[in-house]
C-alpha cells in the first residue's frame, strides 16, 4: 500500500465493477466457533469421565474393604464394628475370632472364640450365630453371644432368639441370660441309674442321674457302657447343671 486513498478507491472499484462483493461468512464463522468450542466440551466430558473413574475406583476400594463371606475376622485389643447385609450391626469384642457365612437376607457367622454384640433390624432378614455349642437364630433383636472354652453365654436385650444345642432347640426371651456349655468325658462307672463321667480337665468324676436328664437322653442312657466317650450339655443355673448326655461325635 503506497497511498491509502488510492487503495480505498481501488477496493471499492473491485467491489463495484469487479463484482467482488464481501462474502457472507456467517455459516463458516459459526461452524468454526462451534468447532473451537468442542475442545471445551471434550475437556468437560473428560473431566466427568475422570470423576466417574475415580468414583468407581473409590467404590471398588470400599468394596475391597468390606468383609466378604468366607473370610475370617479377628480382633486384637480393640473392638470392631461390622454391618452385614445392611441389617445386622455387630460389634466384635476384643480377642474375638469369627467367620462370615450365610447369604443375602440370611446372614450368618461362625463364632470361633470371643464375644459379639448383635443388633438385627426387623424386616431385614434372618441372622444366625453358629458356635461349636449351639446356634443362635434371630429375626429382629438385640443380643450378646460369648463363647469361652467350653461355655456359651447368650444374653437377650430385645426380642427373642432361638438357641439350638445338641439337646434340642429352645426359645430365649428378652431379659434371659442363658449360659451353658458342653463337657467332653468318659464314663468311668455305671451303677443302676447313676453314671460317673470323668470330665476332661476336671479332677474327679461327675455323677449323672436320670432326674437331671430329658426324655431323649433317658432312651440313650441304657446304651452307655463304661469307657464310652460322651458329651454333657450343661447350663448355668446357680451352678452348672447337666441337661443332657450323648455319645460323643
Amino acid at each position, binding site marked *: *500500500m*503506497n497511498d*491509502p*486513498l*488510492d*487503495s*480505498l*478507491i*481501488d*477496493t*471499492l*472499484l*473491485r*467491489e*463495484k*465493477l*469487479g*463484482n*467482488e462483493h*464481501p*462474502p*457472507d*461468512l*456467517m455459516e*463458516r*464463522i*459459526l461452524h*468454526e*466457533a*462451534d468447532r*473451537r*468450542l468442542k475442545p471445551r466440551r471434550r475437556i468437560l466430558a473428560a473431566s466427568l469421565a475422570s470423576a466417574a473413574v475415580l468414583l468407581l475406583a473409590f467404590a471398588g476400594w470400599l468394596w475391597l474393604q468390606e468383609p466378604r463371606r468366607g473370610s475370617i475376622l479377628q480382633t486384637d485389643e480393640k473392638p470392631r464394628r461390622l454391618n452385614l447385609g445392611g441389617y445386622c450391626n455387630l460389634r466384635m469384642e476384643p480377642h474375638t475370632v469369627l467367620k462370615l457365612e450365610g447369604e443375602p437376607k440370611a446372614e450368618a457367622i461362625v463364632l470361633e472364640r470371643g464375644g459379639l454384640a448383635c443388633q438385627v433390624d426387623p424386616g431385614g432378614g434372618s441372622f444366625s450365630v453358629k458356635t461349636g455349642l449351639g446356634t443362635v437364630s434371630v429375626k429382629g433383636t438385640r443380643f450378646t453371644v460369648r463363647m469361652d472354652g467350653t461355655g456359651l453365654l447368650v444374653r437377650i436385650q430385645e426380642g427373642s432368639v432361638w438357641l439350638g444345642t445338641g439337646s434340642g432347640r429352645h426359645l430365649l426371651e428378652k431379659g434371659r441370660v442363658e449360659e451353658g456349655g458342653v463337657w467332653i468325658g468318659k464314663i468311668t462307672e455305671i451303677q443302676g441309674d447313676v453314671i460317673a463321667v470323668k470330665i476332661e480337665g476336671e479332677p474327679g468324676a461327675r455323677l449323672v442321674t436320670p432326674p437331671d436328664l430329658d426324655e431323649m437322653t433317658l432312651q440313650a442312657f441304657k446304651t452307655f457302657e463304661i469307657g464310652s466317650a460322651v458329651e454333657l450339655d450343661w447350663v448355668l443355673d446357680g451352678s452348672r447343671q447337666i441337661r443332657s448326655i450323648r455319645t460323643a461325635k
Partner: protein
Amino acid sequence: MRCHEAPERVQDSEKILESAAPFGGYCATRYRAALPGERPQVDRDELAALVRAHQAEIYRYLRYLGASSPAAAEDLAQETFMAAFTSTCPPLSRDERLLAAWLRGIARNLFLNDYRKRKRSPIKINISLVEEAEAVWNRDFLREGDGFETIEALQRCLERLPENRRGALDLFYRQGRSREEVAAHLKMTEDGVKSLLRGIRKVLADCIRRNLAMPGIGAP
C-alpha cells in the same frame, strides 16, 4: 499479555493497534480483563450479531489494507471474528462504531502478523502507511457512518465518468484483464496503464469528496 497490562516491548503493529484502538485505550479503561476461569464475554449469539453487522466492513477493510486475494481476506476476516469470539477483553460498550473499531484493530493486527510470516511476499507494507490507512478509512470511507454513502457516491461518480476512462476501468476491474492486457488493448505501456488507473482513481476520490460535501455537485 493481559488486557490491562502495557506491553513491555511495543512492536510496530502493536503500536498501530494501540494508537488506533477505540478511544485510544489498549484495554485500559473501556476494556477489562476476564477473571481467571471466566468465560470469554462474547457468546455465540453475540458473535453471530457481530458477524452480521460487521463482516462486510472487515472483509473490505482487509482488502483495503492489502490482503493478497479475496480468499486471503476471507480467511483473515474469519480469524478476526474468532479472535473476537475468544477474546477475554471485548469492549464493555455495545456501541456499533466502537465494536467496528475494535474488530478493525484485531483485523489489522492479524493482517500484519500474516504479513510478517510471508517475508517473501511481493506485497510490501509500509508500517507508517498502515497507521495512516486507519485515518483514511475513517475520514474518507466511513465518514462517521458505515461507508454506504461513500459507495453510493462512487456509483454516481462512475456514472459521470468520461467514456474513455470508464472503458479503462471496465477492462481492468469488470473484465479482470491484467495490466499487460489492458496496455495492449489501449496501445499503451504497462506503466502508462498504471498511471492512467491511478489517475482515474484520484479523480474518483476527489469526486466522492465533493459529492459528499455537496450532494448533487461533483462530476469528475
